[in-house]
């Protein structure tokens, strides 16, 4: 036994020594945990926050963010807009790809055409659902019909390289948030020669991606880690304090928090279950995401066509209680259909600060509205089906909470319809087979129209089939209005018009809770597009 004990002790000592040599890295390494993996780094495909984080670590678009999170020039050194707001000219700075080639205007043209050609996830962002680039809608319609696009077709897109350093983009209507849009990864440039050489493998491994950004991808083991090192050739390299960025991928919140405690993570997102345990910790922090969770009533249901019924539903929800006591993850009650911190007005104010609050909790008023509705409908009680996807957390929590809230009203019965996200959207909602759907929307760009467009009668996501000619006319006016202040006021009017009719019933704006090493400074978070920018992160020793 003595021999055995001594062997065990020797083993433990050896391990302890080995442990001294390891660790998450030096003072200039930032380790970032993520619950999801990087899908790939192809601007044509990637459509999730984790991939965006990684892409932005290696690639700069025309515009980027400064250290305060404001839109700033990146690869574009200068940006001019024609008087009619339809022609944007970008002068590019001298920036290099990591293979030594210069970043040219043609790299942007190629990347944008490629998304349309390959029916990329964000092809629609080139057309009237995003940048309004001329020719984009026609090209997207062709691919939708299964047509193969020729180079001649693609050249009809209104993005042209006038010379190596000048990119001219023509639009079908003015887009006041165009600069903001240009920070979105689908507008990033791609080096054509490199991408064609890599073929199908492009952007699917560390070796198959070129960098023109703050970091160069050093390695990526799917399901495990991705490491990035500082790009010494980056045009803004002076601002980059980190030597190394490590992403620990696919870590469950509990595991990520454990690893944070052991010092292996500098940043770890956590979920509601862990909030109570960490909320008093110095490292605890919360972020407001852009995602709005809301209820979509079906206007083809005769009961739900009644305004008072929809009003009763909205009044019966104690949004603050749900966000602060149930979710606890930094989520906040939604006061309107446009989330907070999304859209900044001409005078620098947030849309929500200018807009009215359209949601209150008042059970008595809710009951009165329901009674009124029942009377108008000539019914003694109403049964509504509340549909939600069980695979889109925390939708299930929200549905349960709402069921409980609605059944407090006398005369209202709620039946739960649990399904999957895919079935909810593409079968039940698309075919109008629902009463009320628990749904959500994440912004494509930082302008209120990314939400307000959803309620236009011809919008594909208007599954509730709310049709209002005045609203459509207002939205049409907004899309062509060149004066930013007028446009801002029109958007406020549009939200009010929709909210007064309870077209959709906003519930909460999603938040993220995370643990962040207090010695870390400069991590920039944005609820739209790329969630985290690592360019300005520094770590005190």
């Amino acid at each position, binding site marked *: 036994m003595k021999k055995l004990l001594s062997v065990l002790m020797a083993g*433990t000592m050896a391990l302890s020594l080995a*442990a001294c040599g390891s660790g998450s890295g030096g003072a200039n390494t930032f380790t970032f945990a993520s619950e999801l993996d990087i899908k790939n780094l192809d601007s044509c495909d990637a*459509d999730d926050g984790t991939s965006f984080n990684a892409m932005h670590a290696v690639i700069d678009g025309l515009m980027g963010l400064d250290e305060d999170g404001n839109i700033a020039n990146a690869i574009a050194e200068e940006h001019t807009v024609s008087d009619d707001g339809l022609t944007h000219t970008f002068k590019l700075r001298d920036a290099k790809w990591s293979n030594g080639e210069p970043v040219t205007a043609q790299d942007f043209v190629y990347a944008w055409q490629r998304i349309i050609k390959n029916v990329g*996830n964000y092809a*629609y962002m080139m057309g009237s659902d995003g940048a309004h680039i001329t020719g984009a809608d026609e090209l997207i319609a062709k691919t939708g019909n*299964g047509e193969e696009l020729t180079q001649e077709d693609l050249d009809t897109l209104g993005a042209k390289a006038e010379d190596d350093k000048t990119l001219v983009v023509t639009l079908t209507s003015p887009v006041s948030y165009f600069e903001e849009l240009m920070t979105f990864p689908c507008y990033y440039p791609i080096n054509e020669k490199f991408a064609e050489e890599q073929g199908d493998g492009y952007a699917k491994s560390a070796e198959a991606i070129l960098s023109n950004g703050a970091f160069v991808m050093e390695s990526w083991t*799917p399901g495990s880690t991705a490491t990035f090192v500082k790009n010494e050739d980056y045009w803004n390299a002076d601002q980059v304090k980190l030597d190394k960025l490590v992403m*620990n991928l*696919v870590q469950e919140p509990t595991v990520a928090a454990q690893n944070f405690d052991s010092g292996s993570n500098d940043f770890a997102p956590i979920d509601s279950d862990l909030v109570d345990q960490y909320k008093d910790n110095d490292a605890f922090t919360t972020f407001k995401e852009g995602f709005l969770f809301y209820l979509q009533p079906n206007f083809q249901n005769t009961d739900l066509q009644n305004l008072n019924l929809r009003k009763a539903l909205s009044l019966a929800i104690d949004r603050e209680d749900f966000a602060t006591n149930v979710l606890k993850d930094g989520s906040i009650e939604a006061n309107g259909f446009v989330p907070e911190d999304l859209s900044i007005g001409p005078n620098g104010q947030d849309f929500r600060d200018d807009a009215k609050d359209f949601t209150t909790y008042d059970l008595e008023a809710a009951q009165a509205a329901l009674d009124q509705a029942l009377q108008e409908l000539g019914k003694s009680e109403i049964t509504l089906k509340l549909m939600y996807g069980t695979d889109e957390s925390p939708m299930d929590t929200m549905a349960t909470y709402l069921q409980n809230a609605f059944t407090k009203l006398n005369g209202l019965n709620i039946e739960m319809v649990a399904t999957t996200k895919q079935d909810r959207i593409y079968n039940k909602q698309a075919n109008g087979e629902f009463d009320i759907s628990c749904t959500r929307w994440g912004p494509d760009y930082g302008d209120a129209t990314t939400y307000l467009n959803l309620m236009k009668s011809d919008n594909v996501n208007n599954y509730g089939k709310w049709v209002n000619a005045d609203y459509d006319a207002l939205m049409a006016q907004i899309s062509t209005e060149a004066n930013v202040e007028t446009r801002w006021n029109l958007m406020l009017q549009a939200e009010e018009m929709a909210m007064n009719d309870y077209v959709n019933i906003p519930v909460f704006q999603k938040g993220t809770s995370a643990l962040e090493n207090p010695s870390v400074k400069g991590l920039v978070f944005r609820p739209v597009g790329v969630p985290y920018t690592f360019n300005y992160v520094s770590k005190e020793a």
Partner: protein
Amino acid sequence: MSKSTVRYILQRLAISLVTLFVILVVLFCMVRFLPGSPINNEHLSEAQRAAIEASYGLNLPLPQQFVKYVGGMLTGDFGVSMNLYKDMQVSSLVGTAAPISFFLGLCACILGTIVGIFLGVVAALNKNTIWDTLTTVLSVIGVSIPSFVFAMLILIIFGSNLHILPTMYSSAQPIYSAIMPIIALSMSVIANVARFTRTEMISVLNSDYIMLAKAKGLSRKDIIFKHALRNTLIPIITILGPILVNLMTGTMVVEKVCSVPGLGKLLINSIQASDYNVILACAFLYAAMYILMMLVIDVSYGIIDPRIRLGKDE
């Protein structure tokens, strides 16, 4: 090897191949009937979604999709990931993940068997003493607590508190960072092997030939190592098969807890993302390993003891 043995092996091989094919058909259908879809971004319009589905051949009738998939499989093409790692080759994803899981499983099995046999022998030789009770208690704990709970415990104690072991797997330190998952996984192996060894050893020690050996005046060391232990070890082979299969399922959760980028973690993540081709490849590989193990066990039984050959024999 006799003619009948060769024939027996071929027979088992044929049955295994048929089983594998049936499994593939069932898996393929089950995966396609899973609720959800790999393409479920709500920002996509129905037309865009249909176009993406068509690009993956998901619009074809199921039998046609199956034929296409099997055709690809025979040439080593397991398709591409549709959601988790968009458009990456599944073969390369599985090719990176599987060796890590195999390494963990194998190490856990070897470690567990050695420690288990040692503990079992100690318990049997010291029957009804404190060592015996201790081993029994350890075995009960090992059998009843799932391996991921051990993983969590080791993570908290040796990782977070004592900082002896790394809390997550790192491909830069594949051996050092594998210690924690290997120990966690080996717990149930230790428990099972120890209990089995103890029972076998006690029964062997009570058998007539051991009594004869004692009567012949052989030393205790000779009796234990030359006769008792040898005869105890042979039946242990029989439980290693099920233990290895058990380990395979255990690795799934342990990999998730210890952040090991192995096959189990890939399978769980792919199921969550409804990533058809990845689920199929991982599940099929698990099934193939299981069948291969069963085949090896059957064949080795058949060779060791021709009386227990399964199926008809001449």
